[in-house]
């Protein structure tokens, strides 16, 4: 019992790494299902009609690539498969631009879409929350040229897109700018909003989901795995669900063991004091 009371932190590190590695090597392939808020995103994107305009925003940084890239991969591949959709895309965080470039160049090459006619990639937009308000007020003033340098005024797709009200759906990934997107775009112009959120911040946006300001959200890797089950692929997120579950179970065990040892220690101290 004495040993359980203070396990050296390096042993805990090894336990955690083992609890992640085992399911990676020998996967259990437990079933993954999509909860209600994930299905709502799927329906919202599936119900897009040709000619609808979508504002695609990436506001997650490179550090939570694992969680957010699996979300954006599945949602964006579903979005790209819809025909006749006009997409305006921008990165609101510097390192989000890495992933935005990958998505938009694959959209142009794999789906044979033409920059300027089917989509406009604004690249990284500097300024954080104020930049979101700037985009909402007047896109042509906020980002006069797209990431390749050609002026928005010359692009025929941007003729009838002036400010936030010209969008039918805003898709965002990442919690850092979701506050300002709700505040300056979707609430002001009454546009539907769906968003992928890091699991850490998902709880803070629950009030927006219940009040209808946010039409659907993905809760970290669990949400990504749910969306993958909806579009019928067993992608990286679903494969990661097993190690995620096993490491979470290890954390629960650690908490319980920690508390048991704490209670035992307290009772010993109590019995020593009363014995004296």
């Amino acid at each position, binding site marked *: 019992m004495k040993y359980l009371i203070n396990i050296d932190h*390096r042993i805990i*590190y090894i336990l*955690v*790494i083992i609890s*992640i*590695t085992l399911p*990676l*090597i020998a996967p259990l392939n437990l079933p993954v299902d999509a909860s209600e808020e994930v299905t709502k995103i799927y329906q919202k994107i599936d119900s897009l009609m040709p000619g609808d305009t979508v504002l695609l925003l990436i506001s997650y940084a490179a*550090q*939570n*690539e*694992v*969680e957010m890239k699996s979300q954006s991969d599945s949602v964006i591949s579903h979005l790209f498969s819809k025909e006749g959709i006009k997409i305006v895309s921008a990165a609101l965080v*510097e*390192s989000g*631009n890495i992933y935005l470039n990958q998505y938009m160049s694959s959209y142009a090459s794999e789906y044979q879409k033409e920059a300027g006619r089917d989509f406009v990639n604004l*690249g*990284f*937009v*500097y300024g954080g*929350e*104020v930049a979101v*308000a700037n985009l909402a007020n007047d896109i042509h003033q906020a*980002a*006069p*040229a797209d990431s390749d*340098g050609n*002026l928005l*005024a010359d692009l025929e797709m941007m003729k009838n897109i002036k400010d936030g009200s010209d969008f039918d759906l805003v898709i965002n990934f990442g919690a850092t700018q979701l506050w*300002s997107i*709700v*505040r*300056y775009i979707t*609430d*002001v112009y009454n546009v539907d909003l769906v968003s992928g959120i*890091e*699991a*850490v911040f*998902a*709880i803070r946006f629950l*009030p927006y989901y*219940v*009040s*209808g*300001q946010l039409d659907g959200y993905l*809760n*970290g*890797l*669990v949400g990504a795995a749910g969306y993958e089950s909806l579009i019928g692929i067993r992608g990286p997120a679903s494969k*990661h669900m097993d*190690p*995620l579950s096993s*490491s*979470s179970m290890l*954390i629960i065990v650690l908490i319980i063991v920690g508390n048991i040892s704490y209670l035992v220690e307290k009772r010993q101290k109590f019995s020593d004091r009363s014995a004296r």
Partner: protein
Amino acid sequence: MAGTWIAAICTLGLMSFVIKDSPLYRLAEYTFLAVGTAYSFVLSLERLNPVIITPIKQGKYTIFIPVALGLLLYSRFFRGKQWLMGFPISVTIGVGLGLSLKGIVSSEIVKQLSDTYTSIGSLEGVLIFVGVICVILFFYFSRSNTGANPPVLAVARKIGRVFLMIAFGCMFSNVILSRMTLLLGRIKFLLGDWLNII
């Protein structure tokens, strides 16, 4: 292939920190500092072209006003001229305040309260209504000088505290999910892409 090796060395360099602080870690740390700062500096510099130079080409010369205001911030490097920084700072804070005051009122207060009222019909609605009121009262910290708080407030604070603890429990589980996902990503990279055991 060389790229994966560089990435693996960077990963192990930073991860070695968990065991002991070593020169390899310090090198990885300063590489991270340098490349991270340089990356955001390059991206922001590239924004100069579309945001400042393009309007000038299009003949919108009013863009020179914010450029001048921004240059005032460089007065910081001249002794005695620091007060000039007040102009750009007060403009930035003014815009920030104007946007956030309106944004907070309509999105974070009125819309939330109106949804709490409209959904009061169902049992869940009543529960949410009680919860919201009690949590707001929980943040009410001023007391009469006797220090004791009125019975209604005491009860509301207890209910609010229960709601808050359930919410923090939910947040706590999400934090675990998030942190474990990140660790999982790195281990999958080391085992999968680098050593391709998996």
